[in-house]
Structure formats: C-alpha cells, structure tokens
C-alpha cells in the first residue's frame, strides 16, 4: 500500500498542475478569442439609413461595423446594406427591411455551426457560405409563416 501512495500522490500533483496550467492558458486565450467570436459578421456596402442592435439599443451602421448573434438589422426607405458573416455567407438587405440574425455559431477550425435568419419585413438576398456547404441542414431562413431550408446557394426571401 505504502509503496503505491507516493507515486499516486505525485501523479495527482501532476494532474492538478496540468489542470491549473490548462486553466491559465484558457484564461489567457479566452478573452481575445471571445472578442473575435462576438463578431458574427461585418457590414460591407452600406447605403442610406441602416441601423443594427437589439431591442431599443440601436446604432447606425458603417462599412466595417460588426453584427453579432441576436442583432436586428433595419433599413429605411433609402437604406440598404451588405453583410458578410464569418463563414462567408453574404446577406444583402434591401430597403424597408427588418431582419434578425437569430442564431450564428461557427467554429472556423472545424467549419461546423448553425445559422438562422428571420425576415420580419422587406427583402433579403442570401448567398450561402461554408455552413451552407458543410452543414446545409443547419442553415435556415424563416419568415413569420414559413421556413426556408437551404440546398442551393443564392436566393431571395421577401415578406410583404
């Protein structure tokens, strides 16, 4: 028994050490990684009145600005925008449109994830990216009364 006790204790110490260094590495790496992950996509061309945000917290949009999961993009009669998500999905947003990025999860190492977009009003054109290629079943566009499943790459969804 006593013969086992010492190596076991050393092994445990090593495990604890390994754990704590893994935790340190995680803490070190997680903050910049999280900051990058929070950005689901980037605005490209932006014309006229375009805002983005959640609930009442809205901000005007500029080229290079970020869009995050759960954000709503809204355009007025003069507004339009092109949004590029991290997996390469492009969403062109027409005038008088309200569209939610309901869900966007994308692991850029494995190229796995989920994308859900909800069109509440107006029109969007979607050109799907890596998620549409690797996991088409995980890409959905919904309107108040329909669901679009994606097998192809380029289509328009309009809610009147």
């Amino acid at each position: 028994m006593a013969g086992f006790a010492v190596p076991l204790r050393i092994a445990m110490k090593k495990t604890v050490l390994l754990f704590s260094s893994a935790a340190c590495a995680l803490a070190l790496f997680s903050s910049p990684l999280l900051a990058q992950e929070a950005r689901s996509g980037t605005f490209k061309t932006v014309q006229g009145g375009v805002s983005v945000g959640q609930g009442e917290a809205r901000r005007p949009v500029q080229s290079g600005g970020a869009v995050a999961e759960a954000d709503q993009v809204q355009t007025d009669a003069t507004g339009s925008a092109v949004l590029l998500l991290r997996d390469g999905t492009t969403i062109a947003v027409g005038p008088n449109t309200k569209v939610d990025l309901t869900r966007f999860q994308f692991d850029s190492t494995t190229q796995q994830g989920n994308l859900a977009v909800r069109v509440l009003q107006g029109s969007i054109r979607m050109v799907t990216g890596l998620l549409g290629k690797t996991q088409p079943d995980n890409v959905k566009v919904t309107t108040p009364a329909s669901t679009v499943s994606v097998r192809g790459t380029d289509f328009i969804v309009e809610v009147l």
Partner: protein
Amino acid sequence: MSMRLVALLALVALQACAPLSRVTLLPQEDGRATSVQVQTASGVVDVTQPYQTAALQRDGRLTAQQSSAEEVHAAYGPLLALPVPAAARFTLQFEPGSSVLTAESQSQLGGILAQARARAGGEMVVVGHTDRTGSPQANDTLSLQRAQAVRELLIKQGFAPELVEAVGRGEREPLVPTEANVSEPRNRRAEIIVR
C-alpha cells in the same frame, strides 16, 4: 363613386392579392444545380429551377410559379444591384518548422493589405495549415500559431485588429494529400482570404 374611392379599393384589392411572403431561387454562379425548400403550415414546396418562386398566399396556400430573369430583376432591382464581392485568396509559405514567413511571402503582404483596404468594410481571414507530421491536435495548435503570427504582421502594418481573424485548420485541408506523418512543405502554409 369618387375616383379616390376607386383608387383606394384598387389598392386594397391589390394588397389582398399580394402574397404574405415569396421566396425566389437565383441561378448559381457556376451553373450547378441549386434548390431551396419552403415549408409552411399548409405544405412544402421544393424550388429547384432558377427564377422559380414559392409564394405564401393570404388564404394560406403555398404556390410555386416559374418566373423569369426579367421579371425578377424588375421586382428586385435595388436588392440585386447590391454588390456581392468575391473573396480573393493568397497563399503564403513558412520557413521550415517555424511560424516565420519566407522572404518571398513576406514581400506579398503589402499588396494584399492594399487590396483589403480598397474594399468597403474589407477584412482578412488568415488560415493556417500544417502537413501531417505530428498529432492532429498539435497541428490545430501549430496552424493557429502560424495564422496568429501572420495576423500580428498585418496588424503591425496598421490594419484594424477586429477586421483580421486568425483561423487554424490543422491538417484538414492539405494542398497535396499525403499519408499520416509525411513531411510535405507545400502543406505548411497560410492562406489570406481578402473579402
């Protein structure tokens, strides 16, 4: 009946005819087959032809119809006029066993940065790759380190950090497929995607 009332009735009638929503399939750039499936409480429609539409009518019916390029462009001109820019890709090589770019690859960075700056909201994704020596897990780490090293160089040149993403793809995307544990310099590389 006054003209105004007629106009109003016509507008109401028109709105009653317009569907609640409409999905239109566009042709794929490379001409390959494409499709979307539209599902509502009343049914399912597969839209499989370019410029075919599925419309959810106000009475709940889901109807498919073949439209044309002309009609779709007339209906969605401003939307289709929005640019969907294609990504540009560049491949960089590393000095053997390191995260240091070769002199030749280093000299490409200026031109790549210029292209990224020329785009509206231009960004870069640096994707690191390894060969198949070492474990897949170790290669995930190494490929990310390579990508991060290049990302740092781009940021040092003044590019906005939030618009440069470093991605490690490990050994998943070899340029030259090999068996495990084969050293292949052409697979030890980083791509920069400008988009």
